[in-house]
């Protein structure tokens, strides 16, 4: 499953025109200074910005809304509904009967299943957001600085768990990051220029 995209985002004071390709199971690290467009690139791929063309295995998904793109997204600001439990957040949008446990366990957050999102710490929320992104067996995983609040000792194991889950699903991964270890774990790197 190869992902091919032409991301075009334009707004006052900012424009991005970037071609990218990621093979199934591969990881593309997107690096660049603040304001270089890493988040905009991910938003374009997710269908949250107009003007981006996206093909998955030759199928044109450019006109598909985000809900029909089979995505797994971890936003930089996570965006977990505070009223949901961790388990509910993970299974939201999945068919009835879907289980959160396996996915929470993979990211070391099984014990948080019943905790309300609003009571979790930043790092715990980040783990839940990652579990949520993986639980829908996406074909395209978009991660925006997904390990920024995780303690240093756990980051490498968590990174490996996330990338393994993506490989298992045959998904392509695009990760926006400032972390050299994320870049080292990636198959390819894309550097965005400053504005």
């Amino acid at each position, binding site marked *: 499953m190869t992902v091919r995209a032409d991301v075009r985002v334009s707004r006052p004071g900012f424009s991005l025109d970037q071609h990218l390709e990621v093979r199934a199971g591969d990881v593309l690290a997107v690096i660049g200074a603040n304001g270089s467009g890493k988040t905009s690139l991910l938003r374009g791929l*997710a*269908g*949250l910005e107009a003007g981006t063309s996206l093909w998955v295995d030759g199928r044109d998904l450019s006109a598909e*809304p*985000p*809900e*029909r*793109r*089979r*995505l*797994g*997204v971890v*936003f930089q*600001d996570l*965006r*977990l*509904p505070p*009223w949901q439990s961790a388990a509910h957040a993970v299974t*939201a*949008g*999945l068919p009835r009967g879907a289980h959160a446990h396996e996915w929470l366990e993979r990211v070391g957050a099984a014990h948080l299943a019943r905790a309300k999102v609003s009571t979790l710490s930043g790092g715990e929320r980040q783990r839940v957001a990652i579990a*949520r992104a993986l639980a*829908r067996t996406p074909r395209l995983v*978009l991660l925006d600085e997904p390990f920024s609040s995780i303690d240093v000792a756990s980051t490498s194991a968590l990174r490996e768990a996330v990338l393994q889950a993506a490989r298992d699903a045959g998904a392509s991964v695009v990760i926006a990051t400032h972390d050299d270890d994320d870049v080292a774990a990636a198959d390819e790197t894309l550097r965005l220029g400053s504005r």
Partner: protein
Amino acid sequence: MRTRVPPAVAAAAAIGGLLLLLPLLGLLVRVPWSRAADVITDHAVLDALRISLVCSASATVISLVVGVPLAWVIARARPAVRRVLRAVILIPLVLPPVVGGIALLQTFGRRGIAHDVLPFARPFTTSGVVLAETFVALPLLVVTVEAALRAQDGRLNEAAATLGLGPWSRFLRIDLVASRGAIVAGSALCFARALGEFGATITYAGNLPGTTQTLPLATYLALEQDVAHALVLSVLLLVVSLLVLVGLRDRWIPALQS
């Protein structure tokens, strides 16, 4: 650190507080409590109370059904469109209620330009009272809910889209849930405004005992004939309004939480 209140601010705040509190005290002090039971069990008063409660509740339900979607549309509109829509929504709020009643008569009355659009809410009927109250109270619900929806900035909605939730699911499961506090608070404000409605109601629906006479209309009428009677009715209205506030409590309005 406790903030020291500047004396000028404290004085102005005290005057403001007294301005709100004193008239209520004045009312309570003068109420002939010995007559209260007789007045409240009077058939005409019970009729007016029933009409008030039923019409205010109906106006609140209608406002919820049409007001929440209206608030959503305004919150998600482009800024220029949003400004225009919000100004239009606010007109009934700043309009003298009597003018609102006249406008309703000219629109939905017998010779109104849209007299067939709402045949069930003709002037001088109980449903006409509901229409007048809805016209005046709906904006309060809309502005309250719209502010809450806009504060969310659509971020949770976007995230839900990437999870596979369609527009209708996102409206029900994200936007409505996230703004539930504002929806309840807006409904309470809407109900309270409808309960106290006078000008638009008397202009559009008249003051027919047992049909369109609400408690505020009955109170005003009583003031001309029997002041003591009017005082008891005033306290009755005050109690119903306070019940709305108590029902709200701080759990529904985050801003009231200490």
